């Protein structure tokens, strides 16, 4: 039997800003349906990693493979096609402020996938319905709550029919009472078998979803393993220290 090929393979990514190294050789593989979670202290390079994977930040060295095909970011068409296949969710939503929820979701379908407007509208409506925003489609970002905004941004990404989703702290800008509705949507994605790489500090939530957790610090994946192991029985002192701190924080917020 042939080896299974990862949907997304990240190999030896290096990045430095000025003289400061931020990523020092990060590699990881996501197989179809995998949900992997990245945790780690602030400034450890988690966001930079996700940005590099999507080529939103130019990496200094390293390779990204989608279904075994190396992405060459100098070939624009290839890059744009790749980005459609890799959905990205940002901490602060990044909705387009001048478009209502419906058009936030439609614009990628119309401008990137070149769907006819009527078809794009139908698809966008279906995606918004899926994230529970059927009644808010005509609202502009400024009229939506944080949780609703993040759900719009998830619908916007899902409309492109990605093979992988990268989520960068999708709930950390939200009031505690709004986190649940976004988690619910992420859980629903997981149930449908979406492949995901999720950066989060919500380790409780993460451990119920993730197959594997990466602990990242100083631009490296220091340790990786199943949630139970990383959270309660980590090998590295740094990991244990971080997880106990974060565990306490989460308890306090309950």
């Amino acid at each position, binding site marked *: 039997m042939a080896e299974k090929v990862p949907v997304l393979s990240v190999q030896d990514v290096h990045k430095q800003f000025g003289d400061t190294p931020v990523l020092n050789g990060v590699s990881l593989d996501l197989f179809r349906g995998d949900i992997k979670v990245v945790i780690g202290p602030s400034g450890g390079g988690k966001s930079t990693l996700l*940005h590099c994977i*999507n080529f*939103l930040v130019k990496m200094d060295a390293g390779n990204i493979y989608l279904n075994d095909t190396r992405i060459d970011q100098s070939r*624009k068409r290839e890059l*744009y*096609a*790749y*980005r*459609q296949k*890799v*959905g*990205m969710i*940002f901490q*602060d*939503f*990044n*909705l*387009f*402020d*001048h478009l*209502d929820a419906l058009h936030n979701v439609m*614009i*990628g379908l119309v*401008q*990137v996938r070149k769907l006819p407007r009527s078809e794009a509208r139908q698809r966008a409506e279906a995606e918004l319905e899926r994230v529970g925003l059927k009644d808010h489609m005509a*609202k*502009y*970002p*400024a*009229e939506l709550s944080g949780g609703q905004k993040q759900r719009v*941004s998830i619908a*916007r*990404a899902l409309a*492109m029919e990605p093979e992988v989703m990268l989520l960068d702290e999708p709930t950390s800008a939200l009031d505690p009472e709004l986190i649940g509705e976004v988690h619910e949507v992420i859980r629903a994605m997981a149930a449908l078998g979406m492949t995901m790489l999720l950066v989060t500090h919500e380790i409780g939530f993460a451990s119920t979803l993730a197959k594997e957790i990466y602990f990242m610090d100083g631009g490296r994946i220091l340790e990786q393993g199943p949630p139970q192991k990383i959270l309660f029985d980590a090998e590295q002192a740094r990991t244990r220290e971080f997880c106990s701190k974060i565990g306490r924080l989460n308890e306090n917020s309950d």
Partner: protein
Amino acid sequence: MPEGIIVIGENLSYILGGLWVTVAVVGGALSMGLGLGLLLALGQVYGNRLLQRIVGVYVWFFRGIPLLVLLFIFYFGLLSALEIDLSPFTVSIVVLGLISSAYQSQIIRGAILSLPEGQFKAARSLGMSDTRAILFIILPQALRLSIPGWANEYTIIMKDSAVTYALGVTEILARSRHVAERTYQHFWIYILAGCIFLVLTYIGTKLLQRLEEKVRISGYAH
């Protein structure tokens, strides 16, 4: 004193004839300034180092020389040197347009830079090209934010347009002066000219305010 009023009555339609010239000069200059200013702004924000430099020098140049001097440079200097035959009217539009483009580029640039950069990132993450992201995400918002700046720019160009009288453009001030010299009613005639400009600046800024309200993004407080 009533004599002044009578003179105004007799010459009003002649002076108002200059209205269309003024409006054409201002309209032409602002449109040209917008088109050019937009390109300059995009060049300065998204261009490479060299392009940014060039735009910087351009802006410095056209903001740093008095309008009247530029009008003379172009009309008496450049045109004859290049043996081009353009009317004072056309030269006025071009010179005011070039100056306005320098100012408008900075209005638009400021608007672009004030947008949260995450939106551009999000557009690219959907697979949108930079050009499309600029066209469909950045500019619709930046242009909205530029409207108050334009209202300001409009009043400045409107007032500056009177300077083109020095080239013999028969706009409001030129015609007023003509009448004043003939009738010796300087005070009343120039008051009239001033009032016409007041009305023009008022109407323009009101219209732009309307536009601003009309395209305001729902739920967005400014």
